[in-house]
């Protein structure tokens, strides 16, 4: 339960939380991929994509809430709550919940991040009615005080676990530095202090406010009967209340900075940069994907040639992280301490060169081919489609077919990349951190 790392491929990147626009019209005529949308009167948004060639279906409840929506005093409540959702409801004990998932042969989990919490499962389609009943029931948790105390221990374990995973510590440090003072600097897991101080009453209050129907989406992809699914969700969730969850979505524009943090017990030095980019709903979001790929894809990118193939870093890469009202290109590299300063210089050099010279026709074509291929490959997985539906709904208020996404990527031009770089020059808001054995200040 509860991956909190943004590097995790299974997390839906950059779901935004605009109170969902509206309804049936958005699905208008897009029957090619058999897309469905429906909005209940209480605001719960249903999304679906029918995939005839599979025997399974993936479904989730996706809540627009995460660490960025928390009062700092109760930081970590979204994630702790996600654990508590498996602990029982008015109709089911935790044993019932875990047993039922197993009896259905489900693959299931949940995840919490800065701006979302979701509960998903994949089952063979004859189990769907039972699965939807279980997931919908879980969304109304019992929040028993004794269970709460018990689970606090597991959360504290999870916090300790992530301390032993350097990439996760590095990522936290980067976001704290880049988003200093902004809710996106919050840690998804919270801290030992906030978790130890949290009360079940505060959690209950948070749940009431954030788990209103109009702050939740239900998404399903695979082999299912839409009328049956819609009817069942309507019947189970139609009585959920409507509220004013909302969210502050101001962006930040930090001044360039760099800081390294010492961890004596580490052998390698890990480095990360945040470069300002566009939010998920921006028209240039596909350009941002393309530029991120050209800069730091795992093979053939500027950083691959300039930093990895020159023998400086063992690994290097960049990813576009699209969020609600904010966006980042995150660059990461791992190297031996003796090469850290040179690696940082090389990364900065590649960023500057891309900023000044823009992209070439050749590398643009290759980046687009890679991205378009990934879109098609991702389109074959029910889990990935289930999350993509949510992503596109929250970004642009409608569902996109795979063909539309491919075309949008294909349309990105050298000039679009130039305009994008001019609009948000990469080095202007470059915030970097490092974690490893080097003494504090050694890389500043």
């Amino acid at each position: 339960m509860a991956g909190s790392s943004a590097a995790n491929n299974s997390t839906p990147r950059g779901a935004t939380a605009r109170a969902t626009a509206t309804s049936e019209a958005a699905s208008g005529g897009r029957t090619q991929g058999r897309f469905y949308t429906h909005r209940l009167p209480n605001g719960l948004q249903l999304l679906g994509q029918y995939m005839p060639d599979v025997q399974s279906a993936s479904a989730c409840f996706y809540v627009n809430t995460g660490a960025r929506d928390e009062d700092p005093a109760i930081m970590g409540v979204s994630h702790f709550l996600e654990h508590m959702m498996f602990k029982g409801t008015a109709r089911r004990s935790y044993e019932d919940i875990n047993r039922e998932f197993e009896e259905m042969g489900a693959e299931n989990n949940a995840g919490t991040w800065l701006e979302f919490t979701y509960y998903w499962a994949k089952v063979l389609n004859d189990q769907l009615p039972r699965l939807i009943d279980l997931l919908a029931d879980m969304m109304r948790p019992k929040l028993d005080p004794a269970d709460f105390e018990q689970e606090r221990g597991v959360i504290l374990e999870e916090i300790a676990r992530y301390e032993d995973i350097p990439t996760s510590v590095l990522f936290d440090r980067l976001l704290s530095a880049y988003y200093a003072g902004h809710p996106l600097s919050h840690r998804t897991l919270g801290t030992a202090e906030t978790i130890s101080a949290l009360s079940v009453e505060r959690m209950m209050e948070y749940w009431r406010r954030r788990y209103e129907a109009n702050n939740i989406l239900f998404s399903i992809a695979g082999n299912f009967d839409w009328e049956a699914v819609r009817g069942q969700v309507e019947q189970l969730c139609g009585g959920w209340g409507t509220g004013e969850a909302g969210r502050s979505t101001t962006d930040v524009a930090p001044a360039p900075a760099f800081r390294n943090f010492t961890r004596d017990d580490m052998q390698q030095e890990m480095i990360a940069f945040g470069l300002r980019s566009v939010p998920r709903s921006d028209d240039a979001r596909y350009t941002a994907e393309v530029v991120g790929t050209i800069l730091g894809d795992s093979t053939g990118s500027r950083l691959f040639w300039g930093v990895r193939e020159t023998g400086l870093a063992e690994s290097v890469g960049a990813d576009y992280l699209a969020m609600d009202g904010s966006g980042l290109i995150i660059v990461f590299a791992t190297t031996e301490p003796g090469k850290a300063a040179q690696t940082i210089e090389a990364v900065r050099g590649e960023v500057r060169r891309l900023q000044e010279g823009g992209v070439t026709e050749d590398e643009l074509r290759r980046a687009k081919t890679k991205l378009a291929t990934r879109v098609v490959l991702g389109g074959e997985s029910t889990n990935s489609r289930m999350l993509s539906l949510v992503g596109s709904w929250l970004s642009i208020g409608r569902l996109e077919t795979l063909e539309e996404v491919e075309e949008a990527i294909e349309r990105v031009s050298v000039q679009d990349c130039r305009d994008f770089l001019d609009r948000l020059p990469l080095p202007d808001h470059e915030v970097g951190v490092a974690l490893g054995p080097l003494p504090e200040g050694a890389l500043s």
Partner: protein
Amino acid sequence: MTAVDASEQIFPRHRLANGLQIIAQPMEGVESVALGYLIAAGARNEQQREAGISHFVETLGYQGTAHRSVQELTEAFEDIGASPDSGTETEFTSYSVTVLGRNLAPALELLTDVVLYPGFVPDEVPKARDRILQEIAQIEDEPMRKVLDLLRREYYGGHPLGNDVLGSVETISALSRDDLQAYWRRQYLAGNVVLAVAGKLDFEALVRQVEDLCAAWPAGEAASLPAVPEPRRHALVVHKDSAQQHIGIAFPGVSFGSDDYYAVALLTLTLGGSMNSRLFNEVREKRSLAYGIGASFVPAATSGFVRIYAGTVPEKADQTVAVILDELAKLEADGVTEDELQRAKTLLKSNVIMRSESTAVRRRAIATAWWYEGRVRTLEEIKERIDAVTLDQIKRLGASLGMSTRIVLTAIGPRSEEELTGGRI
């Protein structure tokens, strides 16, 4: 006979004169195709002084061939939208890629160039060496990975199956370009190769292309392994000031192809393979001792083991170990219940079917099945085998595997061996 015929239709196969084997699964309703070579060049094939050489050769794989520079090779893959992958494991090295169906032929040509005509580009060798030395250092920073490497090594007690894939700083520093080439000539022989392809494909065309590309591949096979020794009951605890104590426990399982394969898989699921397993309930749900707790089955060609991992703050580590050992004792004495067995069967069957929907997963599944057993079973056959497992079979296994007598524990963290095991191992 009918089962074999059905299998051949679903999984067409072909063997080249030089011994190279092709196994395929054409799939309906997909646009992609996944292809990959498995080659008998894994850590188990290495002599002591060449530890890590399989991975060294693999690291050089995409760094240029006899026909293409690293730049040309990388761009050729990018031109067909491909992000190729490779990995070295204990028993083989794999090179694989997933592409759109229309790009199967160029993808196969590129992948074959990589495995059959490696460049061993002189400039790339020191860079690859450096990267591997960094990877070795990196593992030290990740105790939850390191503890499982240690567990494998300790479990196999000096047998090649316990070899570390990465090798050591000493061996990697000493290996020369000549060593790499000699190793490649020794292990990359056609009889050691399985090419598996799953997804959108035309099998006849595939075979023609492979015949064309691989006919010149030298024949030959790898040497067989010495027998696996009995695991010795012992513990190895390494001190580190980490936030958690990372604990690995192993006891014997069975090999791929064993009649008890699915019985061990089901036993492992009940022990620690789901959020409703015994270990999850006893360690996490009831006692809040750990966040990460679970068991998995790690089969190999001639042996196999069951592996448990737990990560817990040091103050709770001793109790965590005690609870796990208690659960193993119960499982050893009483087996599992009818109810548990039924649930585990449902879960395993469902997972097998749902995972069959991805071309990359299918590619991997048929490759390993063919590799280890020389046959691929249909989903129906697999379901039958799972259903055929009985309570008695699991009880007998529980009593005979050696969960208390042939158990190995490794740990990394602040606690001492005495504190952790209380003398129970």
